[in-house]
Each structure stands twice: as C-alpha cells, then as structure tokens.
C-alpha cells in the first residue's frame, strides 16, 4: 500500500460555524494507480488534495505513506516529505517568472540539496522527456501554455516522487495542448507513476483508471473507469441524489 487514508477529516472554523470540508474519508491507494477525483465545487475535492499532498494537516484521522504515519509531521518534516515524495502539477502552472525552464525544473532539487551539476543534468533529462529539450533556457513568457504545463510536469517528476498530484492540469489549456498533457500523464502512469488528478471534465477523467467522486466532504462513489460515458453517468447519479 502506497498511501492509506484512514478516517481523515478537515474542519475549518469560520466565525461560529464549523465547516466540515472533509468528513471521515477513507481511501487506499496502491502504487501505479491513476485516480481521477471529481465532484461539484465545494465538495471537498480540493481540500482532499491539500491534505493528502501534505500541504495541509488533517483535523483528525491518519495518513500513512509507504507504511509511515505522517499525520503528525511538523512543517519542516512535511516540507521535506513533499520535496521527496510528492510532485505537483497546478492548473495555473505556477512557474517562476523570468526564470529559465531549466531553473524552474531544478527548483525541487535545489531544496533537496542536490549539487548544481546533478541538478542541471536531471532537469535537462526531464525537459527532454516532456519534449522541451530545445527550450531549456526559455522563460515562461517565451513558452506557450501547453509548453509551460510540460515544464511544470518535468518539475513534478524531477525528484522522482512516489505520487503526482495534478489539479486540473488541462483546465487552463486549449484542447490541443490539453490532449498533449493528457498523453504525457497517461504515458507516465504506464511507466508506473502513481497519479491523483482533480478534474471536473469527464473527458479528462477518462484517462484515469479509477474514479473517486466527492460530495459534501465525503466520498460518494469509488469505481473503476470503463469510459467517458460511465464517468458522466456516475456524476449524474451523484447530482441526482439531492
């Protein structure tokens, strides 16, 4: 078992109200899985992503990564854990402006205290892998949206993490660039990478193998993906339950 999520809750206090963004969520993720996380806005899927990617600490419950209980890790330990075990792909790309593609990709290695020679070598390899071997020194402003997201994917991969979290990776892209990104993610999963992707597009979700649908902070559907039609059907069922 790669990641075990056991009765995890995340509550926010706003004024006198307690908002249960996540409520007793259980989920087991095996190595090599490709999970699409779906759900209407406010369903808790973003909070779920934050908590399992170690960006936020759960209010209760237990998270076990590679057999280690990481629930109570402090900020420094979680920083290190994110650096070593988790790759992030954001909807907004989140590249450093006015910084070369190579330096952007090398960022996690910088915090992993890898020496500069090794950093450049590995970053170059990763950029070549996503098809940007000829764009090493371009800054984000000199790259298209699709290319920027590919730089971000290279960055997510460069420190060889156990899990990749992707938050609407194609959400900000035109359909052609989106397809390219999805192809890369599919390929990565085939090579054995574990990917957890938040999306609201059934089309995007169809590249994953497992579907998890959130509603009101709980998982209401957990099924194997058989095609886009089935994803749409499952989502509709969830909506219709109201």
């Amino acid at each position, binding site marked *: 078992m790669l990641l075990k999520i056991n009765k995890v809750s995340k509550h926010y206090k706003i004024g006198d109200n307690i908002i249960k963004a996540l409520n007793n969520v259980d989920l087991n993720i095996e190595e090599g899985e490709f999970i699409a996380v779906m759900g209407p806005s406010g369903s808790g899927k973003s909070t779920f992503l934050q908590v399992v990617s170690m960006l936020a600490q759960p209010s209760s419950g237990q998270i076990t990564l590679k057999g280690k209980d990481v629930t109570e890790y402090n*900020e420094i330990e979680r920083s290190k854990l994110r650096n070593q075990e988790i790759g992030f792909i954001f909807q907004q790309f*989140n590249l450093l402006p006015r910084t070369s593609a190579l330096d952007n990709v090398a960022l996690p290695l910088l*915090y*992993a205290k890898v020496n500069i020679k090794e950093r450049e070598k590995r970053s170059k390899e990763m950029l070549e892998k996503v098809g940007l071997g000829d764009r090493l020194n371009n800054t984000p402003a000199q790259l298209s949206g699709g290319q920027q997201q590919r730089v971000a994917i290279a960055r997510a991969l460069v420190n060889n993490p156990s899990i990749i979290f992707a938050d609407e990776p194609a959400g900000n892209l035109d359909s052609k660039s989106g397809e390219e990104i999805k192809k890369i993610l599919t390929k990565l999963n085939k090579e054995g990478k574990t990917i957890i992707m938040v999306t609201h597009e059934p089309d995007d979700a169809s590249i994953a193998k497992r579907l998890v649908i959130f509603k009101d902070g709980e998982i209401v559907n957990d099924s194997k993906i058989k095609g886009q039609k089935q994803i749409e059907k499952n989502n509709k069922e969830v909506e219709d339950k109201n």
Partner: protein
Amino acid sequence: MRDTFIVAIKAILVNKVRSLLTMLGVIIGVGSVVLLTSIGTGLQAYVEEQFAALGTNTLYIVPGTPFSEGGGFGGQASVIEGTKPVLKKQYLREILRNNREVINDGLVMAVAINKAKYQNTEQKVSLLGTTSNFENIYSTKTNKGEWFSKIDNEKKSAVVVLGPTVAEEFFGNIDPIGKKIKIGSKSYRVVGVTEKKGGGFGGPSFDSYVYIPLETMYDDLDVQFIDNLTLKANEEVDIKVAIKAVEETLLKELDEDEFTVVDQTQILETITGILGMFTIGLGGISAISLVVGGIGIMNIMLVSVTERTREIGLRKALGATPNTILTQFLIEAALLSLIGGLIGLIIAYLGSLALQPYFPAKVTMNAVLMAFGVSTAVGLFFGAAPAKKAASLSPIEALRYE
C-alpha cells in the same frame, strides 16, 4: 546556503531598476557617512602631522588662558588677557637661568604686520621677530643663504630671512640673497630663505613670514608686544615637570591667569578633540540617511513579499522550509544593502580623491569596515520583518493568492 545566495542574487537581478532604487537610500547614507568622516579624519591627521613636525618637547608661554580647563578655547576674559602686553623679554632669561636642568633653550617671538616693497612689488607681510636659535627650536633650516646670527640681533642689523612663499612673491625667479627689501621706512638685506614647511598654527604659514632679528624689530618698527615665549625642554625630562618648573618661575612675576604654559600635546588634544566631535557630528547626521535607507529597503521588501506570495507558496510546496525562505529574503535584503553600501563607498572614495587637491580627505580602513558592517546590519535589521512575513506564509493560501 550557497544556493540560497544564488537564488537571492537572481531575485535582485530580475528587478534591476527596482533593486537600484531600493539601494539608493543606502548608497547615499553610506556615501555621505564615509565621505564626511573621511573629511574629519583627514583634517585630524593633517593637524597631527603639522604638530609632529615641531617636536614634542616644545613649550609655549602665551598671555592669558587660551586653553580653558574643560578643553576648548577660553572665553571672553581670556581674549582680553591675550591682548595685554604681559610677557617680557627678561622672563625668558629668568626661566633659562632658574631651570637649567629642564629647559635647554628658548626664544621670544613677536609678530607684526607691515608694508614691504621690492622694486614694483609692494604688499603687506607678516614679520616675525625672533632670535637666531629659531632655526633650531622650530627646526627651520635655510634653503638659500643663512639665518641671521646672534650678533646680528645684538647689533640690531638690518637683515631678514624670508619664508619661501614671501621670497617667491617678491623675487620670483631672482635669487633674493643680498637683495634689499624695504619694510616700513628702512631697507633690509635678505640673508636667507627658509625651506618649505607649511603649517603655522593660529596664524599665517611659517612659509609666508619675514623673519627679522627681535632687537632690530623693536628698534625699527615700534613693537613692544611679545606673542609667545617658546622653550625647548630637555628631552629626558617629563614635559609636565618642565611645565611646572616654568610656571613656578613665572608666578614670581605674573598672576596665575595672566599666562599659560602649554605643550604640543595640550594644543593637539584640544584641536583633535574638536575635530573628533566635528567628525562624529557629521557622521551622526549622515547616519540618519542610512536609517532612512534601511526603511526604504524594508518597504520594498514588504512589497516584494506581497508581490511574490505565489512564488513563496510554490517554493514551500516544492520543499522549501520556512527557514529556507527566511534566509532567502534576509540574504536578499542584506545583499541589497551591502551592494548599496559598496556603491556608496566607491562614490565616497572618488569624492575624497576629488577633494584631495583642496582638502586632506582620507578614507580610512575603519570607515570602509564600518560601511560594510553597518550596511549589512541595516539590511538584516530592516529585512527581518519582511523575511519573517514571507517565512510564515501558508503554502495553500499563498498558492491561491491572485
């Protein structure tokens, strides 16, 4: 650490214009502190140099009490005392007779201003009436000719020795030795020209005096007033003991407040004390601009942290610990300030070079070290608040920030 340094340098270089504007306060601050203190210390060094040339075993007896107790020059009373003709020639004889063990030699010095004329050149000159031992006591050698002799003084000979500046003014390229120069109504033969010395505290430079035998001066120019008695103390005797002995002799003739016996160190201490205060004052005023510069850095760093909230969030998400972020922003602030200090230092150094021909400005190692130390400290101090703010940002909030 090295990598954090590089990250900070890159952040500074990405915003060149803004970085330069941020540094401006520190540039001006450090520049003015270093330049103004260099002027102060240069002045001090210059004064000390001038005094060192006179030797440390020289004593002066002056009328009145020009150096008051608390350091600094005396008040109105001393000015009045200073104009009274209290010093007399015979005091020198008495001092020399009564204090043979402590005082080796001494001379009387009287100063007057009179018109001098040689051919078509006519102008006012400062006359310094003294005896032939001036050559030794003030170690003023002649460059051309010779000093007037003891006999010249006794015989009231009409001879003068010129300072090099006066010689140049009246004679230009002509050799003045043997020429006659008219002072007042009489003509005097030039017997010597002194070598260039510069200096001359509290009056014209020694180079611009016309030296004349004291007795000749008294006779011809109707001078009664004695400006000071200069004594050469025995090198082996403590200067304070010599002062005490001379004072005891003089007190038989004069009241306590009618004269003062001073040595080089007292005069020097008074002057360097004043110059020291002057330097500190100037430095203090310009230090205010350094504080303003520091606030400028803090201001820009705070803006920068807000502007780069997303970047900070991203760095944290990718594994930067709060400490790494804190260090990054601290280094950035310190570097901004340090580079500003460096530029300020270069400007101050160039400024002091430009001043050199007119003023003895001197950039000391202390000023350089202080510039570096203070500017780094300013950066760290004023960078602390923005850096702390950056370090405490939550990665989720920061990533969501638009």
